[in-house]
């Protein structure tokens, strides 16, 4: 189920976890930092001339150990519900 959309960000509610998909073209995995708080995710990516700051509010509380994948300019964050 899709629960939220903003430019470059999709959040999918998958029963026991949230899947957050973020467009981050032009950076490398090691340039990306993901900071999870109970009901928000902060993403910062710094790569030379490119700089991204994204703050995403979540509708449900999540645990703080995200699973992170980066491929073809897309960041996927899996967050277990608290």
């Amino acid at each position, binding site marked *: 189920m899709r629960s939220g*959309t*903003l*430019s*470059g*960000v999709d959040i999918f509610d998958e029963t026991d976890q949230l899947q957050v998909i973020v*467009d*981050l*073209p*032009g*950076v*490398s995995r090691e340039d990306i930092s993901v900071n999870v708080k109970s009901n928000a995710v902060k993403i910062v990516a710094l790569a030379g*001339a*490119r*700089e*991204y*700051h*994204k*703050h*995403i*509010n979540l509708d449900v509380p999540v645990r703080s150990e995200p699973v992170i994948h980066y491929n*073809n*300019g*897309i960041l996927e964050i899996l967050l277990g519900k608290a």
Partner: protein
Amino acid sequence: MERKKIRKDEPILDFGLKFGGILTELGNFTQDITKMVEEGKTEMSRTGEFSLDRSKKIKGMYGVSVRMGGDGMPRVDTFGRRPESETREPIVDVFDEADRLQVIVELPGVEEKDIAVELKDSTLYLTAGKGERKYKKEIDLGVPVKGEPKKQYKNGILEINLKKA
């Protein structure tokens, strides 16, 4: 070497008018632009959520990207997707580099094999992606070019190099 942009977008100066109340939610965005200039960054973006009343019943999303043009003027684009249209229009930059043109296209989420670029006269016809991620754009290069476009795709960015005719 100094890169020269040939895209002729007019810089938007009336941020306040364009973004209205959303601007306050963008925090210190103008300070960020100043920082960009100081640090020599050419591009940054900020996205997030905002709510228009305290009960958070009215919520919205924003996205703004700023690029520094070759003339030193920041160019501000809002971005996002139009719900009625499945095909997105990617962000494109064209750089004029002496004997060649370099075209940079942001295509996050597509596979390299799903990118097609066709050159006709001095226009590039680009289609990319499949399923939920589809992009389409006609890029007017402004000057005549020759030969096959050379493509390179990495981390969601397509780079196309063309020789000037």
